[in-house]
């Protein structure tokens, strides 16, 4: 019997396991390994600070999403790619023929000096962990006004639009509490604008400006000075804060570093189209664990899972993997007051305005704030638990489409291009 092991049963690992469950060729067995008894729907972390979601409702027993899947409830402490085996917390060694790394990414606040100092979880908060989002809810409820600084320490981060959403929702939250005038919102980013892709960056930058949120760009945070309540940068700028909400440095799972398989942040070097681990035979990687220049997002994990399932089947069948992944990513961006926008892009094509998923009809509007997009974002929660994780067929394809998009925007001077 040959064995496929899947490390990590989060968004990506669970989808792959449920896709393959009914498709395993004879002679193959499959197990997933994850020590955590509960599955957290991470997009809910954005809503917990504002009291529109509760910590208890953001989690479900992991067993619910792994029915009929062999689940080993232990941590993996090491991967030995040369011996083709993994070592479990109990010391048990399991050999594999194929291995899927889906161990995700986590925040590393300790990478920034002073971040986890005396003010941590009182005036300095994160919302990328359940404990952080919960503590921040209390801090926001008690906030009496002053300067709220939102800081992305460095890229890459999970769901790169979540900090923008946090800024929009904070604006809305303080307005609803009738205290927006007393709060100064500052968005402090290492990027040179609101977002990494030019057209979306200008739209999103405009949305921050409309809401009176100041942007401090190209700011690489070096230190949090707890005594003076100042966020400092490597180029010696300083920003005072009354409340600091940080998105700390992210890294891959510690087991990746411990096994010597990661880059400088323990992300695994991965082939951008086949999802094979670049340096090791018989290993594939997907979701937040890769080093790919695609968003670390559940939607990306979903598109990758479809490609990966095909590739695992091909390799089990003695064929070579296809170059099926194009960097496709899409995400809803909550913009406050019951509206949201949607962006859709891949490795090569930046987000554009238009309709999605069907040209002209939509019903979703790309890069435009609408109520329907907000319903879409909330509907996604249902779809996550009921469609995505169980790997039921979804309407949207894994490859990005340009249909229905305003592609003319990609070329600022089309007449010139045509004559060239």
């Amino acid at each position, binding site marked *: 019997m040959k064995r496929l092991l899947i490390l990590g049963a989060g968004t990506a690992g669970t989808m792959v396991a449920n896709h393959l469950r009914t498709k395993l060729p004879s002679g193959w067995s499959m197990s997933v390994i994850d020590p955590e008894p509960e599955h957290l729907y991470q997009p809910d972390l954005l809503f917990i600070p504002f009291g529109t979601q509760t910590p208890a409702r953001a989690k479900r027993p992991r067993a619910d999403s792994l029915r009929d899947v062999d689940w080993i409830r232990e941590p993996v402490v090491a991967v030995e790619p040369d011996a083709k085996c993994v070592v479990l917390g109990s010391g048990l060694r399991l050999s594999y023929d194929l291995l899927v790394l889906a161990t995700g990414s986590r925040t590393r606040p300790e990478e920034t000096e002073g971040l986890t100092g005396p003010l941590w979880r009182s005036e300095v908060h994160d919302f990328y962990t359940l404990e952080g989002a919960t503590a921040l809810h209390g801090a926001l409820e008690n906030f009496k006004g002053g300067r709220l600084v939102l800081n992305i320490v460095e890229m890459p981060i999970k769901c790169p639009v979540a900090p923008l959403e946090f800024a929009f929702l904070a604006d809305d939250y303080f307005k609803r509490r009738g205290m927006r005038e007393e709060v100064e919102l500052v968005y402090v980013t290492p990027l040179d604008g609101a977002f990494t892709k030019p057209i979306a960056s200008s739209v999103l930058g405009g949305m921050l400006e409309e809401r009176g949120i100041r942007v401090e760009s*190209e700011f690489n945070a070096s230190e949090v000075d707890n005594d003076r309540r100042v966020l400092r940068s*490597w180029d010696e700028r300083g920003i005072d804060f009354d409340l600091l909400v940080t998105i700390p440095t992210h890294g891959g799972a510690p087991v990746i570093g411990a096994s010597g398989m990661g880059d*400088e942040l323990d992300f695994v070097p991965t082939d951008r189209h086949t999802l094979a681990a670049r340096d090791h035979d018989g290993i594939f990687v997907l979701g937040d664990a890769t080093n790919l220049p*695609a968003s670390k997002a559940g939607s990306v994990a979903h598109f990758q899972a479809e490609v990966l399932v095909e590739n695992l089947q091909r390799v089990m069948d003695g064929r070579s993997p296809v170059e099926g992944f194009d960097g496709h990513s899409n995400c809803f961006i909550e913009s406050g007051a019951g509206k949201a926008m949607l962006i859709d892009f891949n490795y090569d094509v930046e987000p554009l305005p238009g309709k999605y998923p069907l040209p002209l009809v939509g019903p979703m509007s790309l890069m435009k704030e609408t109520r329907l997009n907000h319903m879409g974002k909330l509907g996604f929660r249902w779809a996550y638990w009921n469609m995505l994780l169980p790997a039921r067929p979804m309407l949207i394809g894994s490859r990005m489409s340009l249909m229905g998009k305003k592609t003319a925007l990609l070329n600022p001077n089309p007449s010139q291009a045509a004559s060239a």
Partner: protein
Amino acid sequence: MTTAVFAGVDVEVNEEGFLVNSDEWTADVAEAIAADSGVGPLTELHWKVITFCREDAAREGTAPGLRRISKLSGVGMKDLYALFPKGPGKLAAMVSGLPKPQSCI
């Protein structure tokens, strides 16, 4: 895309001033870009960073980001800011004739 003259040679650069073709890079071009972008005359420590960036990019196929440079080049973050003020990630790549490092999204 436009053509710039660095060290008496025509090289193609994009809107932000990064070389379009990394093969057009020479040590003289590096000096010229450095002078142009406010980095100033290149010292031994600058060269340590540039050499790392070019070797790493040749190996990895992409320009290294700031964290990678600070972790693997042997030159720490503080020094990188002193050497390439106002954005060592971007400037080190530019002077090394590499594309702007992708800030992954």
